[in-house]
């Protein structure tokens, strides 16, 4: 089955991931800009990072027949340095012009501080001004509900097109308000700390499959890109058809990411031929 991994931090992973993902049917990954594990101090560090994910990483993925796309952002954890954020944001337009950059992300909130909210607003404003898609990170664990509500509050005060915004890492307590407000949502599957494959399928059964993206987000921490395939297996073994699985795990990423014409992978369908071709 063809799969799109819409949130994947490739530079933190080895080529073995690409090889195994390719063998399991992954045809494309999208890499949001991420936190490096420490707070970066210089705009140039971000610029080189954005060059890495927009220029070098597509070549590494291509060796395994996988298309690689990316996003640019200053991570919410680094928003406490507003000067740095402003300086990095000034460079975004040059990356928007690159052939594999899909938009701004992952911006969002970590501890929902005033600086984080201002950074989120600046990121979204810049994205909207340049017609870019937006990927928004929501906090984990104890701050999840509060942080997600805060994201919705910030967005509600802005002139945005909800269909071009993806609010990620939603869970059972946060999915409904995000969908109700018209945004796309993402389930991020982690071995322990985020949503699980089984819970993701529960939510797909409860809320339907429209405007939902499923990803593993694998990064440099305890994570596993194949939680996405675990989710597909769970979905299929509950009796959902291959066509339904394609809609969720391939076509929904095409629909959201394809709003940026640079993402040119189109939705597909299962077709049974009436006759065996000669």
């Amino acid at each position, binding site marked *: 089955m063809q799969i799109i991994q819409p949130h994947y931090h490739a530079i933190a992973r080895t080529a073995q991931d690409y090889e195994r993902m390719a063998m399991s049917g992954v045809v494309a990954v999208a890499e949001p800009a991420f936190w490096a594990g420490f707070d970066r101090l210089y705009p140039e560090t971000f610029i080189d990072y954005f060059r890495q994910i927009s220029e070098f990483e597509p070549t590494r993925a291509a060796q395994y027949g996988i298309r690689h796309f990316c996003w640019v952002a200053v991570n919410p954890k680094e928003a406490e340095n507003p000067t740095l954020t402003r300086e990095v944001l000034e460079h975004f337009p040059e990356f928007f012009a690159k052939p594999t950059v899909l938009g701004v992300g992952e911006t969002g909130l970590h501890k929902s501080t005033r600086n984080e909210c201002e950074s989120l607003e600046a990121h979204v404003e810049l994205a909207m001004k340049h017609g870019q898609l937006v990927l928004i990170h929501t906090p984990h664990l104890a701050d999840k509900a509060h942080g997600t509500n805060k994201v919705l509050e910030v967005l509600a005060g802005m002139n945005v097109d909800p269909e071009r915004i993806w609010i990620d890492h939603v869970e059972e307590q946060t999915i409904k308000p995000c969908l109700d407000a018209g945004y796309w949502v993402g389930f991020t599957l982690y071995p322990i700390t985020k949503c699980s494959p*089984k*819970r993701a399928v529960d939510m797909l059964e409860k809320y339907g499959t429209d405007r939902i993206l499923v990803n593993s987000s694998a990064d440099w921490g305890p994570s596993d890109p194949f939680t996405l395939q675990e989710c597909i297996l769970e979905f299929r073994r509950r009796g959902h058809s291959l066509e339904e699985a394609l809609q969720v795990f391939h076509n929904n990423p095409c629909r959201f990411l394809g709003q940026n014409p640079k993402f040119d992978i189109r939705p597909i369908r299962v077709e049974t031929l009436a006759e065996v071709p000669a």
Partner: protein
Amino acid sequence: MLSPDQVVETYFLEARHQLLEVAALLDRLDAAVAREDRPPGVQAAGKVAVLRQAITALGVEGSPTDRTVKLLELFASV
């Protein structure tokens, strides 16, 4: 050997994950019952009852009985 704080800090997230999976299983069961408008069969109902007893047993503070042994005995009954 770990200190009490180390035990909690080391295993809290793992336990949180496992409890969420149990909660999701029970929600999944409720949704299935509502969808089909019928409760589980006798054997499945017995397993659900044991799960609920196990959850109750976990909530008892300062139990003199080893919780793991108690749960293994409960699960052996179905």
